[in-house]
């Protein structure tokens, strides 16, 4: 596959995943802010901005952190490069560039998403909740079209790489922020909502309930989201996908990325929560994010900018 095409596909799916993750965070922050038992509404609303490292940039534009301002900034602001609008714009542009390598059904799904987004943007914006649901739905649809119609060749592999690298990064960041916040908390009821919000944002509430039978606390959540391989957005399952995808790509390239990913996966496979706690969960997460970043640059240097 052409290196340029691989790069377009990789970033296309990263941006789509980012749009979906932003919608998930926005949705949950919004419902948490309405919760009487929680912390202040403003603290809850700040969470997605802290996860994406954009709190400062937001403050420069908006005097107050309100639901409306947050919604505008994360969903519609075309000057904010990580807004859902901007992510979908880049994704669609990349898809346009590689439309010869994705299936007609994938292209039409994404193009229809883009056209609908612009229709919504030029009229009255939909309410926050239905909009977030719509973004998630379109993302599911795209994934369905991809899994259901695209040949299992390099195009598929580079799309998967983008998705899981972005997802691993996002899950780790969310966990990092929630860990920090949890340290300040005390009440069990608050704890419950705090952690279930995170699980909800990661679409993992049901699988958590199945695994831990109603008990929710810092330990169960951390174990589920870091170490369990049966939860689609856990760090371990993202790493498993990255590893198998890297080994499926044709050719001898990518030794560095493969090596780093393999080491990280081994750590997750054989690690325990107790060990992670001993070394410090915040430290682990920071290292994890650094490693993900190095896998990303390995992929870039060895595949996307090669020859």
């Amino acid at each position, binding site marked *: *596959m*052409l*290196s*340029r*095409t*691989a790069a377009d596909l990789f970033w296309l799916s990263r941006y789509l995943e980012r749009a979906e993750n932003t919608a998930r965070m926005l949705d949950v922050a919004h419902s948490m802010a309405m919760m009487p038992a929680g912390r202040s509404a403003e603290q809850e609303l700040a969470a997605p901005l802290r996860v994406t490292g954009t709190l400062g940039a937001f403050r420069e534009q908006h005097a107050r952190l309100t639901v409306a301002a947050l919604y505008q900034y994360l969903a519609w602001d075309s000057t904010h490069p990580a807004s859902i609008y901007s992510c979908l714009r880049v994704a669609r*542009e990349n898809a*346009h*560039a590689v*439309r*010869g*390598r994705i299936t*007609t059904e994938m*292209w*039409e799904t994404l*193009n*229809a998403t883009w*056209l609908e987004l612009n229709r919504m943007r030029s009229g009255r914006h939909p309410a926050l909740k239905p909009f977030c649901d719509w973004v998630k739905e379109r993302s599911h649809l795209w994934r369905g079209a991809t899994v259901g119609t695209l040949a299992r060749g*390099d195009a598929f592999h*580079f799309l998967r790489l983008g998705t899981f690298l972005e997802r691993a990064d996002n899950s780790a960041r969310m966990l990092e922020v929630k860990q920090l916040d949890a340290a300040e908390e005390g009440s069990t009821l608050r704890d419950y909502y705090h952690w279930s919000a995170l699980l909800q944002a990661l679409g993992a509430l049901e699988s958590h309930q199945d695994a831990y039978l109603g008990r929710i606390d810092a330990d169960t959540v951390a174990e589920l989201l870091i170490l369990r391989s049966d939860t689609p957005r856990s760090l371990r399952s993202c790493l498993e996908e990255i590893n198998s995808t890297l080994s499926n*790509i*044709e*050719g*001898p*390239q990518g030794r560095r990325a493969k090596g780093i990913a393999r080491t990280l996966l081994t750590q997750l496979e054989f690690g325990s929560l107790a060990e992670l706690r001993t070394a410090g969960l915040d430290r682990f997460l920071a290292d994890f994010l650094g490693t993900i970043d190095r896998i990303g640059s390995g992929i870039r240097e060895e*595949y*996307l900018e*090669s*020859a």
Partner: protein
Amino acid sequence: MSNVQPPQPGIPDEMLVDADTPRPAYRSYHAWLSRVAEQELRAKRSEAELLFQRVGITFALNGEDDGAERLIPFDFVPRIIPAGEWETLERGLRQRVAALNAFLGDIYGEQRILQAGLVPADLVLRNAQYQVAMHGLALPRSIYAHIAGIDLVRHSDGNYYVLEDNLRVPSGVSYMLENRRMMMRLFPELFAEHRVAPVEHYPNLLLRTLREASAVDDPNVVVLTPGRFNSAYFEHAFLARQMGVTLVEGQDLFVRGGFVHMRTTSGPRRVDVIYRRIDDAFLDPLAFRADSMLGVPGLLSVYRAGNVVLANAIGTGVADDKSMYPYVPEMVRFYLGEEPILRNVPTWCLRRPEDLAYVEEHLGELVVKEVHGAGGYGMLVGPAASGEEIAEFRGRIRRDPHNYIAQPTLSLSTCPTLVEEGIAPRHIDLRPFVLSGSTTRIVPGGLTRVALKRGSLVVNSSQGGGTKDTWVLAEDPRTEDGTC
């Protein structure tokens, strides 16, 4: 009760002989059209627009940097060509393209036609499109224009005329294919009633033609596009996808060790055939325009060594130049020893003083075109022009007569088309696509373009033209050459 407006007096209409009488090929379609309410047709058209938008069959206009994407208006009243008529056209197309390819091989080789004095040597050798680099090069199968688009119009005398030959990078074939797909989706009942010859196998024929262009066993074929901001990008991506080959940009290719390679995720891979949708001047910054960011440095040297095939070849533009057009019938006679089947429009070459004098006197009746112009730019349509425009053009042709030709204003035939005021006659032309490989391959029909403004003769999409599906009726069941 017919809801189709009657044809204009003196202008042949493809569907109607007069207000109530359809031509034989249109009988069944006309009956259907008369049964359907206009409202329903408009609803179908909105549906079509939505679908096209969704599929993203859009083009960008030259000179519009805002990235605005437009749809080429699609009209669902098909242009129908009877089988017998098409048969003649097809024979004529094969003949004409064979002669043009022979001409290109000749002028870059022995130059027999110049020695015979049938075509003025300076017209060829001093032509800006004549590429000295091509001189003495032996091309596989001696094919220069692997893909040709020949523009035809029907005149009021009922005959088809060739308006121009397109031998560089003719475009529009994706619209031919998408229009058919759309028609079958919107009006399946019509295809049950009519035996319409299929066109869907065009990409397959194109791939075969491109593979045959190379002497390599299992050649690696790519489509070279200027990129996603090019107005025809949709078509480039579409064809690459349909053929299952890689769509590349100049930056994806490089020359090493006498071959062209593409940069892939598993290292360099050799490229054998480049279906290039980039003009000659941009192909190789080392050989042509140094400022080209679209091409591949060193490509020409690989090409000259015979290690890569370009389709079309470099330097084909000299044969589709408007100054060369008047000589095509002579080429048919000279190279093939046959009488031309397709008619040429009588043409005045303003480089000849007597022609210039005549044209100056009759500017108000003639169409004057720039020799190198394309896309409907830089032309004067006499009968439609104001006195001021005519005066301005007179100055232009006096200053540079070599740069212009003139032709009588043809009364292009019309075809009923859904517009504001109902289903009214609009002028159309036809661009069939001719593929030259081990054999000549043509899918029945081509792209029909329609001028949507009343009375307008300019069908180019850049000037607000639209397109129609083109049906060649298969009257007698027979097997086609080149079915897949």
